[in-house]
């Protein structure tokens, strides 16, 4: 499980910002919180570090999302699981 607290900065163009809000609300991995001007608080829940990374990339690709800052990450993944993941990569082959 990966739980992250994030702040999404929306575009200043109101149309684009609304479009981004609609896309973000429809994403089941996100729980949206309060919005302060162009800044939106949210929580992202994903099943694995890979999904976490994918979500990060997808958020950045949404029109009207200018920037995503992460403010909290829970790292509840036990070390052996990480080790297994890394075995499948070539980082230290």
């Amino acid at each position, binding site marked *: 499980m990966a739980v992250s*607290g994030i*702040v999404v900065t929306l575009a200043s163009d109101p149309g684009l910002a609304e479009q981004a809000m609609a896309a973000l609300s429809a994403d089941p991995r996100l729980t949206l*919180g309060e919005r302060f001007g162009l*800044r939106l608080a*949210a929580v992202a829940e994903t099943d694995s570090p890979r999904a976490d*990374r994918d979500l990060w990339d997808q958020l950045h690709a949404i029109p009207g999302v200018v920037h995503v800052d*992460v403010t909290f990450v829970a790292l509840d993944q036990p070390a052996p699981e990480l080790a297994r993941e*890394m075995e499948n990569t070539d*980082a230290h082959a």
Partner: protein
Amino acid sequence: MLTLDRRTFVKSAAMTAATTAAAAGSASALSLPVLSQPEGSSLKWNKAPCRFCGTGCHVMVGTENGRVVAIQGDQKADVNKGLLCVKGYHVGLILYGKDRLTTPMLRKDGKLVPISWDEAIATIAKRIADSPKTFAMYGSGQWTIGEGCAGNKFMKAGLGNNHIDGNPRLCMASAVTGFLSTFGVDEPPGVYDDLDACDVAIMWGNNMAEMHPVLFSRLIDRRTRGEKVMVIDMTTRRTRTSDHAEHVLLFKPHGDLAIANGIAHLLIKNGTYDKDFVAKHCNFRQLGPKPDEKTPPDMLGAPMTFEEYAKAVEPYTPEKVEELSGIPAEKIRLLGELFGRRDIKINSLWCMGMNQHTRGTAINCLVHAIHLLSGHFGKPGDASTSLTGQPSACGTVRECGTLSHLLPGGRLVANPDHRKHAEEFWNVPEGRIAPKPGYHTVEMFKRFNTPTDQGGDITTLWVQVTNPGQTIPNLERNFRKKKGLADKFLIVSDVYPTATTELADLILPSAMWVEKNGMYGNSERRTQQWFKLVPPPGDARDDCWQTIAVSHKLLDMGVEGMKGKDGKWIFHTTDAAGKEVPIWDWAHYYDTNVDERLFEEYRAFTRMKHKDLAPYQEYVKSRGLRWPVIQQPDGSWKETRWRFSEFDDTYVAKGKGFQFYHSVTKDDKALVWFRPHEFPPEMPDKDFPFWLCTGRVLEHWHTGTMTRRVPQLHRAMPRAYVEMNREDAKRLGVQNGEVVTIKSRRGELDLPVWIGGRGDPKPGEVFVPFFDEGKLINQVTLDEYDPYSKQPDYKKCAVTVLRKA
């Protein structure tokens, strides 16, 4: 109070953190629930600075059952106000790579075999005792302050040996010589608050969006609040920073020297320089004559008048600067006009682009010069500020003086008075510190990689908390040659296997980050403290303990230098009752706070250059304090933001406005330097027609030894590549992803091509990141360095691009 199950609790904590950060700077008042932890949870939160870059963000570290289980940005931290970058929020995972080093290993018959700590310490002590003068230590801007203090004292005050240097020599030594030449004292006068107040931010070869992302967000975020801030990106390749810039000025390598002189030319020609500030606070300087063919002129230079200075910059007309730099003359005029305005604030920012430069000292001086000349200095938003890549390049290396020519607190090895002070503070006999500076980094590695009978007079080298096997320029010559030299002995203290441990004769497993007590000093003079929160794995131990244990072993062996003036061990430590604490014995190392002891000893050094630090316990309470930290009549401690400015710096005399109290000319004035444009030592030609620039990427921190062990970061940026301009690729018939050979006069490397990727070099340039230990680009780079800072230039050399058959 709410009682929640664990997942709900974690979600609520995540939403609280996000909401608070989102609301920061907004007018809305917040009312957040007070969360209790799930029943039975032993989760604890503590502060620590981020392990990575010199920004010095603070994180809150959640620990449970001896493990780091959560990270969040620290809302109480001024630097990052609750935010972290992609690296920072994964910082906890760097502790848990599968291949942590957990036991000492000695190479026997060519193979590394596990040994005990006793054998490891005895092996090092014997190597040193057998030949103390050919021993060298190579440390790091990731050394904690305690580690740096222990290493420096051990070498300079114990062994009387100045061959101790640190990797900041490779990343910010030219910033040091720039500050020293201009202000007579190191480190930026300004602070990060300048980012909140400037109208114009100029990036001098500085990809801040990727290298100091939280600072860049702090700057850019002002736009979302309706504030206007103009970003000017002066760069040799387009980067993510360029995407946010109003003006992207792509210049030729070394063109920055011409640009700065061009701005000075316009300020004088248009009469828009700040006449009052210049008259009251500036002297002018140029290089003096060369003492001989091989020796560069003195760094203190020779005086010149304002008229001589004006004459020196006269040839740098916008058209001439266009020719030298490639930047259109009208853009040079724009820069001249901006600097000439009194109604705006300008913050210049730089990092490796200006420092890794064979004229690094010169360009640092020139950027300070245009700020002084124009009076864009010493007011919130008006500053010339260097940023550091490492978390404690400033705190540990620049301030504690862990370079071969320095002593703590801004003192110099070559100055007899400074040696005397250091001997007094360290309580060692007069004459213990050798008068000659030791070898700087490149020289140290050259000598270690040269046969002993051919002048290679470094035979044992101890590397702590850094990876020179990946970062030293011209690796084949300056690092890998050691392999064939039987009498050379390489000791490496580290947390993971690296390109350096690959050639090590002895590997020592180290504790990292919150597995030990520590202090760092970030880019804005902020000293930060944290406590050990989790145990290190296996038999890994603190680097500081390793140094102390070797020192004690040498004491046992009768090495005189390990004793102070009073005949006691140089690291002698007692408890409150005056009883000796055996800190050389790991079982008792944490019986006292060794960090606090070393810091308090070091603190005495800091007054001479007005870099005053507060007592250790003040840092325990705070998220760092920026020096000079001055005690107030009520006993509290006040940090300083704008140095040399009367309104904020206690050391400026009343009525002075500004006072450069460490002035080189001893008249409280700063120096405006003239340094001419010069071409780089190696330029593209018909055999090697491309410029090569190397650098970093957002996801990986420096050589990637930590961040490549974090799956999320590794996957985001798995391996090195070569960025090429689309026109060049087309001309050579190279496709995206195709593997090409990058070849220089020193070596070659195969890399996949990335066209239109993250960065976009100009035609005739290629860029390669250096994080990938499988693709060592420093086999290709040049080992030429700045004559004053001795910092190598990794940003430009000539290469060719060859298609594979």
